[in-house]
């Protein structure tokens, strides 16, 4: 899933750009970028447990922001990192609905090469847009 970290956008924090052919892919790419900023070996996260939640919002950028906030929340509240993403996003009557099932495991410093803690997803320069056939998001994380 494509995401890349962006240099020069922030001095003390982490910025990334995520893309996807559709919203589900975009959300997964962005979610993985959030996790990758905290742990070097993202591939070491096994799918041992799962959580399910649903979100909705009138705007797609708010929906993605809420989704990334959930990942940050689970990291502290349940000590969970995720690697498996089963996402369904639909638009009904002007509103976006997300149903998510995420699979992952408890944070384990012996196995997961931790880098830095993500405190929050900021709004600074935050952007989600559709360009031609792809969705793109720009996100700055407070670390």
């Amino acid at each position: 899933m494509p995401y890349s970290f962006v240099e020069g956008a922030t001095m003390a924090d982490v910025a990334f750009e995520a893309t996807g052919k559709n919203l589900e892919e975009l959300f997964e790419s962005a979610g993985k970028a959030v996790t990758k900023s905290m742990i070097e070996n993202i591939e070491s996260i096994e799918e041992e447990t799962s959580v399910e939640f649903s979100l909705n919002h009138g705007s797609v950028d708010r929906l993605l922001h809420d989704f990334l906030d959930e990942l940050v929340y689970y990291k502290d509240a349940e000590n969970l990192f995720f690697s498996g993403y089963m996402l369904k996003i639909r638009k009904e009557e002007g509103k976006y609905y997300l149903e998510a099932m995420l699979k992952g495991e408890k944070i384990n410093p012996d196995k997961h090469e931790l880098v830095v803690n993500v405190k929050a997803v900021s709004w600074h320069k935050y952007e989600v847009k559709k360009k031609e056939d792809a969705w793109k998001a720009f996100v700055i994380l407070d670390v």
Partner: protein
Amino acid sequence: MMETKKPEFNKVSDYIWEISKDYREDMRVPVRVYSSRALLDEMDLQVYDQISNVATLPGIQKYAYCMPDGHSGYGFPIGGVAAMDSEDGVISPGGIGFDINCGMRLIRTNLTIDDVQPKLRELIDVLYDRVPAGVGKGGILKLNKQEFKELVDEGARWCIDKGYGWGEDLERIELNGRAQYADSSKISEKAIKRGLDQVGTLGSGNHYLEIQHVLEENVVDSGLAKKWGLFPGQIVVMFHCGSRGFGHQVATEYLKLFLDVMKSKYGIKIRDRELASAPFNSPEGQDYFKAMGCAVNMGFANRQTILHRIRNSFEKVFGQSAEDMEMHQVYDISHNRASLEEHEVDGEKKKLIVHRKGATASFGPGRKEVPELYRDDGQPVIIGGSMETGSWLLAGTEDAKQTWYTTAHGSGRTMSRTQAKKKYRGEKLQKRLEEQGIYIKATSYAGLAEEAGGAYKPIDEVVETTHQAGLSKKVAKMKPIGNIKG
């Protein structure tokens, strides 16, 4: 990726540079950057954009200030200071930051470098075991939700009542360790869940716990140093952390609430969504203030619990009681907080909501905000440096009223995290610092590289600027000899 160009500065003094209100038509007040010429030249350009955005916020008084350690953040720059009229101004969570009540604590001892040096490794290892650091580490206190709510209503006192600290610690904390306006009915279940297992955790990033040495040549004001319990050769402990996931969640949720009501209900327009604001005198503004107060209290309680573990660790390693080692707290200060304060604006006394983001209060002698213990001399100000370069203790001044009694908070970054990781390797850095007599234990080598001294501005120049500009006066510099990096 930025198109920003450097604005024109009017030189007010060698240490004050002004950006006129005409720089952008939506600015309500001019900007004042406190900086030496050298620091100004090196400041990243986005700082000026960000501080100019702050100057557009409704109710802002006099100037939007940037401290000498300023660097770009998200929303407010780090080092940004803005005071809004509490009657008709706004409160902005982005002006405080996600890490509400991130702050510094300094503890003194009667131990000398000769007492500690032979046991330094053991001391750092014990502290590393006893003070949880890094991502995913559970806290020292195991609380239920009700206890957590009590803790965020009561702050450091709650911890002391439960045996985590000494009674005298309270008078050595800003606000005596408790934001009185905190109200736990204004926080969510999610915020509680996020913070529940994190009371007594250092966190990661630039958070640290450091063993420091007071060198004779680094004592600038020997009279005040002595009065505050510092002496040449002494070992002190300094640490840096905040309100952890709880504070982050409070800010996250209220930012969204403000985004929902800001324009539709209050007609507030802003340049950057991170600066989402609500009138201080509005239900949303007041709710956030009370929830922020809970996070302020969590920050004080977090540091109080860690202090308790630090005292325990010293007792284990040195076989003496913390009382015998005179492990008194010098002070605890916050550098991410908004505070309702009375200030003089053009000769008139006004209640202002002062936002300090990466900036430290620096109240001078006689001010009621300074605990009685320090009221004759001004409050202690703790400015933390990188793990290589050392940190400073200063005193608040009357002159600091020019910035609503505010000074710098740290070194300030000059290099992004990615650049730092390219330039430094964690293992190598650890070895190099060990050769310099600084023993470091980190939860992550990559994280360690990001915090290399070279990624920060020169602390001495930042501190000199605050001293020369009259924002705070130097007391003593402390040199690190051991560091735990979260």
